[in-house]
């Protein structure tokens, strides 16, 4: 899965920025990206849940660990993405996969 390695290296650049992680069960969690590991397990800090109607009890939690396999997508901050670099990196990694 070439996308995996690309995402991992890209996420490392986003540590410290605010991201929104949407899980496959539709839960959306916003927080500061603390770290990511090789399985794309994600740790967030100062998280708040975007859908408080569906998960009202969760509200705000301080530290949060999200299993990588349940992540549907990660919403990146608009100023955190250099689209040209991402395009180039995707092409190159596709060649090597």
């Amino acid at each position, binding site marked *: 899965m070439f996308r995996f*390695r690309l995402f991992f290296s890209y996420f*490392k650049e986003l540590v410290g920025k605010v991201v929104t992680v949407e899980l496959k069960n539709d839960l959306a*969690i916003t927080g500061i990206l603390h770290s990511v590991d090789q*399985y794309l397990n994600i740790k967030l800090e100062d998280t708040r849940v975007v859908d408080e*109607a569906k998960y009202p009890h*969760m*509200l705000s939690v*301080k*530290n949060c660990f999200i299993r990588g396999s349940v992540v549907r997508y990660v919403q990146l901050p608009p100023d955190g993405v250099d689209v040209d670099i991402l395009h180039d990196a995707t092409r190159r990694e596709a060649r090597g996969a």
Partner: protein
Amino acid sequence: MAGGLVSVTERSEHGGPCLDTANEESVAHIQPSVGIVLGESSVQQPGTLYVTTRRLVWLSDDDLECGYAVNFLSLTMHAISRDQDAYPQPCIYTQIDGCDDEDEEYEENGTDDGADDEVLDNRGIIDDFSRVTEMRLIPTDASSLDHLFQVLCDCAALNPDPEGEQEGEGEWFFDQHEVMSNVIGGDHANNHIDLAELLMQDPRFEDADEEESEE
């Protein structure tokens, strides 16, 4: 898959959980004096929390046939909750998903209030543990939360999905700079030429009926 929360009625001769040593399960951390809240039910306590390399196991201190376990494969997230509006005591908040990723059953179970309402029978007692989607662990010693959180992170990382999003463990990573400067398996001097050839000849770039990569 791992199946979500399960009831544990048996213990080892030492009073702890029966370990699946064939699956290399060992105890990573024991936290005494922990209460557990499953879904909307009231807190059950006191109990002892065993964090193993495969599962979270809570065993009641009073009722030797009462206990619960969930495999890390089903633990979709865990967090430290200090928000008193969410729960009065500081605790570990977790979500459990016992269903396959592709399975729509999860959404079918849910009402707007969450799936937990259907889990309780008319006495307010949980009768189907596999449908519990939220669990809180409340240690009497709140100062243990940070360490407990980290132990859960470490043990969760020991349990990636067996199918694997990647072909094998240990193949790794490319720093963004490496990705930009390295051509993996290619000829550095002929970057652009290789790319053009690749695009024309590589079946991955064919239209339409190519298979999507596994996910």
